[in-house]
Each structure stands twice: as C-alpha cells, then as structure tokens.
C-alpha cells in the first residue's frame, strides 16, 4: 500500500466512490475525510487520474478501429428478407472474405461510400415517409449538424426533383457523417451524405452500388455522395449542390 492515511478506506471503496457507486453513508465519510486528509486527497487524485488515463487510452484506440468488413455489411437486394436469402448472403460473404478483402477493396469505391450504399439499400419509401418533419425543421437540423463537419451548409439549395425529409448525424470510425434524406417525385429515398475527408478535390463520378445509382465527388476537406433514385435526377441534384457549395 502507498499512503498510510488511505488505509482508512479500501481501494474498492475509493474506486466505487469515484464511479458514483458508493452508498450515501460511505460517500459522506470519504468526502469529509478527503477535506481534512491531504494524503488521502492525493491518493484519490492518483486513482482518479488512472481512471481517466484508461478512458483516454481506450478512446484513442477507437481511432484505429477497423470498419465492419464489407462482406458482412453488404445487404441483400431489398426484396424482403428470408432466412434462405440470408444464408446465401452469408455464404457469399464468407467467399469474399476467403478471396481477400484487401484486393477486393482496390476495385471498389472508398469504404465510407460503401457503408452509405449498404445503409441506403435498406431504405424503402416508408423509411423516409415516416420522418414526419417539415422542410423548415429539416433545414434547422442541417444548420445544427453541419458545424460538426466543419462545413457551412446554409447555401445548400433546394434540389430539383427532390423533397427534403430529414437530416441526421451518423458516424464512421469516430468521424461524423451527415446524412440528408430526400424523397424523389415517386417517394423513393435519396440521400446526400457528407463526411469530413481531406483527400483533396475530385470531379463527380457516377457509380452503381448495392443496386443503386450514385454520384460521388469531393472538395478539399469533404467527401460527398448522392445516392438513390434516378440517374438524371441525381446528376441535376449533384450539379446544384456543387454549384452552391
């Protein structure tokens, strides 16, 4: 043991107190003793710092966390799920894993776009029909969330052929990912997704991912992906976004 003063409480008691798990009577005794006992106060500070160091360490570790392997993330075509189809999906997933995800990723869009595509593939018209937000409320959401990306979206225009439904913050590997959901004229879900990603600017490219049309481009500090709906609508919408931002 270290300081003899702290012998009046066990490590369990002090630790429980730091975690807010000590019963009221014990809490009161520790709090009172700490005020008058410098050695105890110092020992508590050391234990508290140790807890914070562990927390910080674990949190930093998250930055190096891998993403869900695409083979596990890729959903089935959105025809409705059956156990049989899922089984087939798993077999396909395992086959992909065996082939080697490294080589696979070389020929694929960036990881974040694949995630977005996997999500978007699960969306059906009801997903966004139920969003239930006025356009004004959705715009307020965008204004509130955009600063987390380090981006000013106040100039984001109405997109031709698309109706704004909602905005929500998602995250990938600890990085914020803003998803702005729209419905096209047939009610089909379309999303504009933005992630902070300093890979430099790139021109729009058309993609086909998870059975969905998509347009991807990037600016100095952000990646953009418009996905879902008709090709033509997407192109016009992408043009409108790019012209405004």
């Amino acid at each position, binding site marked *: 043991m270290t300081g003899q003063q702290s012998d009046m409480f066990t490590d369990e008691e002090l630790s429980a107190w730091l975690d807010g798990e000590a019963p009221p009577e014990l809490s009161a005794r520790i709090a009172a003793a700490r005020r008058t006992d410098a050695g105890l106060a110092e020992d508590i500070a050391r234990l508290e710092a140790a807890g914070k160091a562990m927390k910080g360490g674990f949190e930093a570790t998250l930055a190096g966390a891998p993403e869900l392997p695409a083979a*596990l993330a890729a959903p089935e075509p959105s025809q409705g799920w059956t156990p049989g189809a899922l089984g087939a999906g798993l077999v396909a997933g395992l086959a992909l894993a065996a082939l080697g995800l490294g080589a696979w990723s070389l020929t694929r869009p960036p990881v974040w776009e694949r995630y977005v595509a996997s999500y978007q593939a699960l969306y059906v018209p009801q997903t966004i029909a139920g969003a239930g937000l006025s356009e004004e409320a959705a715009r307020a959401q965008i204004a509130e969330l955009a600063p987390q990306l380090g981006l000013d979206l106040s100039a984001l225009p109405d997109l031709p052929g698309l109706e704004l439904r909602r905005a929500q913050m998602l995250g990938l590997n600890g990085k914020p990912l803003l998803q702005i959901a729209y419905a096209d004229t047939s009610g089909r879900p379309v999303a504009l997704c933005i992630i902070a990603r300093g890979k430099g600017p790139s021109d729009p490219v058309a993609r086909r991912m998870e059975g969905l049309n998509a347009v991807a481009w990037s600016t100095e500090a952000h990646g953009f992906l418009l996905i879902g709906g008709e090709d033509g609508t997407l192109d016009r919408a992408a043009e409108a976004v790019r012209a405004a931002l």
Partner: protein
Amino acid sequence: MRWGRRNNEVREGLAEVYPRLWRFAMALTGDRASAEDLAQATALRAIEKADQFRPGTHLDRWLFVMARRVWLNELRHRAVRRGAGLRPVEEIEITAPGPDTETNIFAAEVFDVMNALPEAQRVTALLVLVEGFSYAEAAEALEIPVGTVMSRVAAARRSVASRTGEQAQGTRGTR
C-alpha cells in the same frame, strides 16, 4: 414481417457499433489480430441470431455479451467450428484505413500499460469507465457478482496509478 425488421435493425446498427465492438474485443483478447477475428465472428453470429435481438434494446450490449461468449467458448481456444470457417485475420490482410500516426503512438503507449492488466480487469474497466455501464450492468454483462466488478475496477485503477506514477518520475516528455 418481424423477423426482417429485427434483422435490419441488427444489420443497420452493426456498422456503427462495430468499432466499439472491436475495442471491446481488444480488451478481451489483448491483441489486434485476435480482436479483429473476434469482432468479425461476433458480427457474423449477430446476423445469424438477429431474430433473437429485442428491438429497442441496446444493440451494443447485446453484441458485447455475444462477443464475450464467442471468445470464451470458441475463439479463445482457436477452435472456430464453422464450415469453411473464418480464416485468421493475418492471412486476409485487411487494409484498415490508417488513423494518423500520432494517435497510433499514443494509443499504443496507453495500451502497453493496459495490456499489463489481467484480461478481466481490462474488460471490466472498459465497460465501467468508458462504456458507462453501472456496476450492476457490468456484472450482468460479464456474468459475475457486483462485488467482483468493484474489486476489478479498483485493482485496475491502482495498478495503472502505480505504473503511470513511475512513468511520471522517469520518462515523461522524452518522446
């Protein structure tokens, strides 16, 4: 179709929870390769068992419990019995998108200290100090008495406190 909804909820949530699932696996296994192996096996299991997930409950907690069972029952002994089976991650060579080097170094240093802790302390400390579990919740997730949670967290704190104390006197600021 209830089954499908649950499945979607698990699938949709999985990508978001996955980094934290991997971190939990890191705390359990203590090394990166085993952690990726375990996280993948757990994700696969979760998709299989999606019909057992109760919508509206915590997906992360459900996954942590599952990961721990997969680890204790199967992977810890390196006996994955699943048809073709997942190959060890080292062979697949997934290229993880690299975090910046500075973060890596910091995480590595702290992990050196934490890796010196017994597995049980590491996992319990993660749940309580980082994931915000109460002692009772951690006890339930780890299938141990509350008193054991309390002594593990206390022991982890004391152990890290004495190690970082040494470092503060010795090598701080040399990097």
